[in-house]
């Protein structure tokens, strides 16, 4: 990967952390729930860059978010990384592309990421997250993530271009092999 996409991705991580800890935590909530911007962007980046780079981006984004949380450091990093890897693997099996790929992957990624976060945090001693209220939060957040995916995918596409070939196209053009 050349330096320009890396710089764009680094700026994206910075933007995610700023937006998540200010704008969305302060007020842009739906039924009291905010989206997981870092997770949505990880899904989008993994969609274009594949499993390994998707996992790496997820790890770095999750770590940046973890710094601001009171849960053990690394919980978001691990859950985002796993989701990034899974999305990267799954997108390789997509034969047809459709305008609904982004919101569907945003929702599924949000769901998987939320469940993984709760499970990993519980393993790390945060038993209080194993509650029915967490289910509601994860479901609402995944719907919000699906909506944000409409914006996240074009942004990720812009950030990852000039990497030597996109792995999959969201808007319907032919995929370029690597």
């Amino acid at each position, binding site marked *: 990967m050349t330096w320009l996409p890396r710089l764009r991705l680094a700026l994206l991580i910075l933007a995610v952390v700023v937006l998540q800890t200010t704008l969305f935590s302060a007020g842009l909530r739906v039924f009291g729930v905010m989206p997981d911007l870092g997770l949505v962007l990880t899904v989008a980046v993994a969609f274009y860059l594949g499993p390994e780079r998707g996992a790496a981006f997820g790890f770095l984004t999750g770590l940046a978010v973890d710094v601001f949380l*009171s849960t053990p450091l690394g919980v978001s990093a691990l859950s985002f990384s796993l989701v990034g890897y899974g999305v990267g693997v799954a997108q390789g099996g997509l034969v047809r592309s459709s305008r609904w790929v982004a919101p569907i992957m945003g929702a599924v990624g949000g769901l998987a990421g939320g469940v993984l*976060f709760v499970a990993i945090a519980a393993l790390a001693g945060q038993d*209080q997250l194993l509650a029915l209220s967490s289910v*509601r939060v994860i479901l609402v957040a995944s719907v919000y993530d699906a909506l944000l995916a409409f914006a996240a995918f074009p942004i990720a596409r812009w950030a990852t271009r000039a990497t030597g070939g996109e792995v999959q196209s969201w808007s319907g053009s032919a995929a370029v092999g690597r």
Partner: protein
Amino acid sequence: MDNADAIAAQVVEGAPSNFEFTVQIGKGESDGVGVDMPVVTGAGLVGRVLEVSRDRATVLLVKDPQSGVGVRIEKSSAPGVVKGRGDSDTLRVDFVDPNADVTKGEVVYTSGQQNSSFPAAIPIGTVSKVTKAHGDLQQDVLVKPLVDFSHLDYVKVLRPPPGR
């Protein structure tokens, strides 16, 4: 306006995650805020200071499942521990004597027992539901908080009295 016993602070941010029940206030170490100091509004108890940096502090709300506050129920003076229930709009009081006469509408106050971070007599909420089954070791008491956590603008951080 600050006085010797309390530090007024503005709530500047909400929780950065869906699984945390905290707020950030715009006062920190340089203003005299310290870890475990109680945080209140005119309505009642908000929580306690969880982390503090030079100019900001994170407040753990009483609705967070990690929060626990020693309390007394108004009329019966029954002791208990208020625990947060996360997303729910009620708190739970644990360890209430099954023989205590607890009724709906009673006010629940901090007990301020020895070594507690919270001074006595800060109102937390009112009893909204009492359930007791024969043979139970404690009553199930739910409390509706007096503080509206969705509209926190200004709070006060209580300084401990000298010598504490």
